[in-house]
């Protein structure tokens, strides 16, 4: 077990290193003329370009540049926004809770919905209800989350007046609106949007796993001893289905955060996704430090989540150690 944890953490560290290389390349190497990003005028003199390049440090050898970049990263310095001069780290620190609220809350709703629908679908196998439950969510993947978000927002907050019109209220303290009830009411529609985006695949997965598990000998024994259907599903089937669900969720963390970008925009939530979009659409052009900082933060989070999910899975089922944790098996 200890050896596995070390190995898994080491591979996560390697991934983080590669991540820093890619980010560095986007930041300094791919722009043909990086100095232009910090010069205010559209037609600078050669001297201005040289000064800007010197300021960014891109006139030094590549290895030196990368080491400086990595050194700053290790000290938590992600640079400053070109647009506002605010440190990127403080932008991330203030807006990450919004994104986390959307993704974590959405994931909880997703798990609940996929378990309920998956079990219904499995128990009514090959009936019309099963068909409806497993086909309807198709609309979820076939519609862009931005479109779903806009439809929900205009239906429920504009026309039916059942939900607030968008924006974010923090869970605890600060700002004009805050507290659990405001937080919840502002996030329900984003959560539903999030759930619809991933639901179809999850319902199908739960359905298949439940049907598979129902054929296992231990379920037959439980049935033979006269266990009620509810008890069979709850006690003998679900414990075997849940780990696959958790593993799938860890793997989809990247896709989930991508969806979160569009959901934040659709509902006007000031999270990391909207930050990245504004950085792209700002008046000064692309705000590269903000974009790469957010890429770093999100990718690092996903890598960490996957490592944790693998370690927990191996802890629960030591047989997996021989392979490489659940993330490799789907």
């Amino acid at each position, binding site marked *: 077990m200890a050896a596995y944890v070390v190995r898994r953490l080491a591979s996560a560290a390697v991934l983080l290193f*590669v991540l820093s290389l890619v980010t560095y390349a986007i930041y300094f190497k791919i722009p043909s003329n990086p100095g232009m990003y910090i010069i205010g005028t559209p037609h600078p003199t050669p001297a201005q370009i040289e000064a800007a390049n010197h300021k960014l440090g891109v006139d030094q050898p590549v290895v030196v540049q990368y080491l400086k970049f990595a050194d700053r990263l290790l000290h938590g310095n992600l640079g400053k926004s070109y647009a506002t001069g605010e440190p990127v780290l403080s932008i991330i620190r203030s807006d990450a809770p919004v994104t986390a609220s959307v993704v974590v809350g959405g994931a909880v709703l997703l798990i609940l919905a996929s378990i309920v629908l998956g079990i219904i679908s499995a128990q009514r196998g090959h009936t019309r209800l099963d068909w409806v439950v497993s086909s309807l969510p*198709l609309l979820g993947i076939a519609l862009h989350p931005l479109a779903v978000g806009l439809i929900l927002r205009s239906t429920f907050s504009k026309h039916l007046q059942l939900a607030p019109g968008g924006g974010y209220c923090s869970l605890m303290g600060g700002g004009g609106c805050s507290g659990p009830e405001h937080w919840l009411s502002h996030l329900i529609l984003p959560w539903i949007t999030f759930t619809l985006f991933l639901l179809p695949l999850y319902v199908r997965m739960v359905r298949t796993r439940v049907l598979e598990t129902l054929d296992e000998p231990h379920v037959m024994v439980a049935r033979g001893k006269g266990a009620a259907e509810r008890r069979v599903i709850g006690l003998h089937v679900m414990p075997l289905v849940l780990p696959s669900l958790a593993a799938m969720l860890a793997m989809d963390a*990247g896709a989930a955060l991508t969806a979160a970008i569009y959901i934040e925009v659709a509902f006007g939530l000031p999270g990391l996704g909207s930050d*990245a*979009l504004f950085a792209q659409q700002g008046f000064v052009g692309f705000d590269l430090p903000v974009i790469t900082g957010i890429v770093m933060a999100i*990718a690092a989070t*996903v890598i960490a989540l996957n490592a944790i999910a693998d370690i927990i899975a191996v802890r629960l089922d030591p047989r997996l150690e021989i392979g490489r944790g659940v993330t490799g098996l789907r």
Partner: protein
Amino acid sequence: MSPAGFPAAAGAGVEEPVVAATSQRVMVLRRLRHDPVAIVSGALLLFILLGVFAGGPIAEHLLGHGPDDIFLGSVPDGLPVGPLTHVPNHDQAYQHFDGTTLFVLGADGYVGRDELMRLLYGGQASIEVALGATLVAMLIGVTLGGLAGYFGGVLDAVVLRAIDFVMAFPIILLAIALGSNATGWLGSLTAGGLLRPGVPGLAVFIGLATWFYPARIVRVQVMSLREQEFVEGARMVGASHRRILLTHLLPHLTGPLVVYGTIVFATNVILEASISLLGVGIQLPNPSWGNMLSTNFGTLINLGSSEYTPPTIWTAIFPTVAILVTLVATVTFGEQVRRALDPRAR
């Protein structure tokens, strides 16, 4: 017909009953032919492809204007006209007005282009990107997944780490970051004029981001296949690794790959839309379903405002419905093919 080497008539005058072996391919096709859902979704898919690739030029010929032609008369009072509107024709200098031309689905927004034409030509771009990206993803995924599953060891470990990395990377943000630098270069590629501008670059980019999905599937499949007797048999008679992989293992993978291909395709259509929506994929004025959605998106980005009204609901609905119908048809057809390949599977 009697098996070779056996005399045709063992018993005088009695014909042997002929039982032709049915190949897997024939059985799958037969099952698909008897499956109404497969027929409907397949026909719909064919209709979309024909409509977009043949219908685009035909409609351009019939209506007399293209996807990039601007008609000032189509945005009276600053709002685009609705479906089935006749819009005044004019020349380049906006001096001479001559009759009207029909905008079947209305105008596309403030600029004043025909929504229908942009939908058809945008569909070409979106489908080309998604198909190309799927090909790239399948090529990389099958190669890496197959080699990793077959050889195992260090190669397997490296491929798995690569999969982890691609999975962890927020592709949309990467597109934004790259788009800020490489848009001009990506947007100008056309693969020798064969594809619409921006398509090859974007297709490769999306393919590089979605190959992990087929790779994982192929790896697991190959891992279980390589332990089977027929592979052992092939190895025993001295077949090379190359021969085992290509002639013994690959045929077992084609069925599942077609099915997973449809899912990757669906994902890629959404990704194209997501990236072009942000203005870093297919560049205006070239249409794509993604940047058509952005007509709405442009007015959207006023954060925190609860009073949001789209300029006209049509410009959002048409590309959304086009994507929806295409994806539902593709995924449904793939699912029916999966069932036809393995009728017992649930």
